[in-house]
């Protein structure tokens, strides 16, 4: 039941990400870049902070692969590798973090989106035979990361409402 719910959550976030936050939809053009929040990273980060560590690896890998399948270009597997690599490391150090704090959620989201997007942009440009354009990649990723960081506490709040069916154990002060 729990994994089915996680799969549904992943599916819905992937669909919303690609259907809602797209050019012409709710993405915002800034300096020629369609800036949009990355809902899938928020869901993956939530899993990394609240799920058991051995589950984080599988869930984030699958989410990454889903994001790979729905991205418009680049090789499959890049996002899967970035998601499971980064978020497993984050999951390992989460005991030192106050995950209920809004600022922590935003800061972690910002960092995760920045790293994942920069990695993806550069890998995609590299495999496509284009210049890696690091500065441009960082600038575009930072815009996405900032927007995602603003949205993250609200999504975390909604996801924490589902803690029962998701089987997450949280301290009372975290709600």
């Amino acid at each position: 039941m729990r994994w089915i719910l996680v799969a549904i959550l992943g599916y819905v976030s992937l669909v919303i990400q690609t259907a809602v936050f797209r050019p012409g939809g709710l993405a915002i053009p800034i300096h020629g870049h369609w800036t949009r929040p990355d809902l899938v990273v928020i869901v993956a980060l939530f899993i990394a902070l609240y799920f058991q560590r051995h589950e984080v690896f599988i869930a984030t890998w699958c989410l990454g692969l889903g994001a790979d399948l729905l991205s418009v270009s680049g090789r499959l597997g890049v996002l899967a590798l970035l998601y499971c690599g980064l978020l497993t490391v984050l999951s390992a150090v989460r005991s030192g973090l106050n995950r209920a704090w809004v600022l922590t959620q935003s800061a972690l989201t910002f960092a995760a989106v920045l790293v994942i997007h920069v990695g993806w942009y550069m890998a995609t440009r590299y495999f496509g035979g284009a210049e890696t354009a690091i500065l441009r990649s960082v600038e575009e990723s930072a815009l996405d990361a900032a927007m995602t960081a603003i949205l993250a506490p609200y999504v975390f709040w909604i996801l924490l409402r589902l803690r029962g069916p998701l089987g997450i154990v949280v301290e009372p002060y975290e709600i």
Partner: protein
Amino acid sequence: MAAMPVVAVALILLPQSFSDRARVWAGPVFMPLQNLTHGWTLDIAEQIRHDIPARPADETGLQGQLDRLENALAEATARLGEYDRRLHDLAQIRKALDGLPCRLVPGRLLAPEVAGGRAGGLLTEGSRSGVSRGGAVIARHLNRGAREALERGEPVLTAAGLVGVVDEVGPLTSTVRLLADPRTHLMVQIVTRRDGQWRPGPEGVARGTGDGATLSVEGISRTSDVKPGDFVVTSPSSEAALPAYLIVGRVVRCDLKTTDLFYSLVAEPRVPPAETRDVYVLSPERHGPDN
């Protein structure tokens, strides 16, 4: 669990065409909900754009407003030009069809780079879209499918002539087999113009050469009067699969060896397939049970 990163690395190392194909396969899993959600989003986005109040009209504001209006005017003029062109194309095709019981389904060919991926791949090339390194485009994707009741084998054309035929019909998109595809075989007729007079010429079979740019026409007897510049049109024969007299291309080379019984003709499609975007699918009129 340890195998998962290895799988990811293996996926990364596989050729780009595999990633493109996987994305095409995965499309139907996400597409129904995506289409539904996207429709709502467009409505919401439109609503938000209308609800944003205009800035107050001080001196700078007036200049800004003027700029915006000029931009809107330029955009509207461009759109009007496009609609005008479409209308002109439609009128021309309708006139040429001369009362044939058929309907024209307007569509748009997706860019080859786009067709391999899902929506707008910038760096991808996919064998499914007919693109290969150093190869030629012989198939394109069309943004119309079974939803518009398209069927396999229906001709795809512009006002300038035939582009190809519908090859595979998906729910929302189709593949168009272009004229230059070696699998394309058409019964054609040569139309000549001598001394200002148009004359129907011999009939033959046109077949794509696979180079993405030309067709070879076979079966034209050596006694025929054929020259470079003559038109190639679809055959009026009742055995032909396509409607008659759709312009296929023009003869560009006309070789004949002394021992040959038939001309070796090379024709160039009238419509350059790589640059074509707006097309029409000629589909038979379908009447419902009430009609």
